[in-house]
């Protein structure tokens, strides 16, 4: 694995944070998350197929209410991180049987010489591992506050 520094708060843009996910199903959540990416409708369709196939391989819900759907795709030319939050939570076939409420979608192009994809995946998984149920990520009101909290958590890693 490479050693390129990855800033999650730097990757996240306010337009890529949806704190009001409404879908009640896994596929609905994936569709909503992909919708935050500024791509064509066709690209959204192809990405949805790709992400569903990755979930069929095994759930990307790592427990504690956090899911990290991810895939590589030709549809993008740079790594994209999208975050979302569902108030009610959605069944993502998690290890601990708890509904997922926080989502971090990572999509990376196949050509990734700095290995940013795996580094980003690892960093989010690490961040999620120590996340308390009372963490402000579950309650903040704006994308800016959400990104700010991610920045705080990153400093603690």
């Amino acid at each position, binding site marked *: 694995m490479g050693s390129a520094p990855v800033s999650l708060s730097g990757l996240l843009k306010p337009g890529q944070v949806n704190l009001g996910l409404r879908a009640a199903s896994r596929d609905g959540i994936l569709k909503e998350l992909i919708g935050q990416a500024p791509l064509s409708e066709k690209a959204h369709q192809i990405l949805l197929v*790709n992400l569903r196939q990755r979930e069929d391989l095994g759930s990307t819900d790592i427990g504690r209410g956090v899911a990290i759907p991810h895939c590589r795709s030709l549809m993008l030319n740079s790594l994209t991180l999208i975050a979302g939050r569902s108030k009610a939570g959605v069944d993502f076939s998690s290890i601990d049987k708890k509904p997922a409420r926080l989502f971090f979608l990572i999509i990376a192009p196949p050509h990734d010489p700095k290995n940013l994809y795996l580094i980003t995946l690892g960093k989010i998984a690490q961040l999620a591992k120590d996340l308390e149920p009372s963490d402000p990520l579950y309650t903040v009101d704006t994308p800016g506050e959400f990104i700010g909290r991610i920045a705080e958590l990153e400093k603690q890693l």
Partner: protein
Amino acid sequence: MHPQLELLVTLHDLELTIKEATEDAAGQKALGFKIEGMEHLTKAKVEVEKQVDKGIMDRYYKLRERYGRPVVPVINGICCGCYIRMPTAQSSDNERNQRITNCGNCGRFLYWVSE
């Protein structure tokens, strides 16, 4: 997008998922992800392959054997397989993903990423 190009892109992405899950299963599991349904992906791959025209599929297999990645993006007018610049007329054509195109130099299938 040309329906056959869409299938090639889908197949390419699917093969990438299978490859990474196979080669880095331990790493993915260490992060907390489940890797248990490989048969679903293998089945999906076969289904996609069945829909691709035989001539295109044969070329895909040959390119995969030669280069590993038979479909590559074109970014800023450059083939990301061999890094040769595409002819300007080809790169500026808005309908460029509406047909199957191969790189004039390396032969890989090309997909123009939105820029």
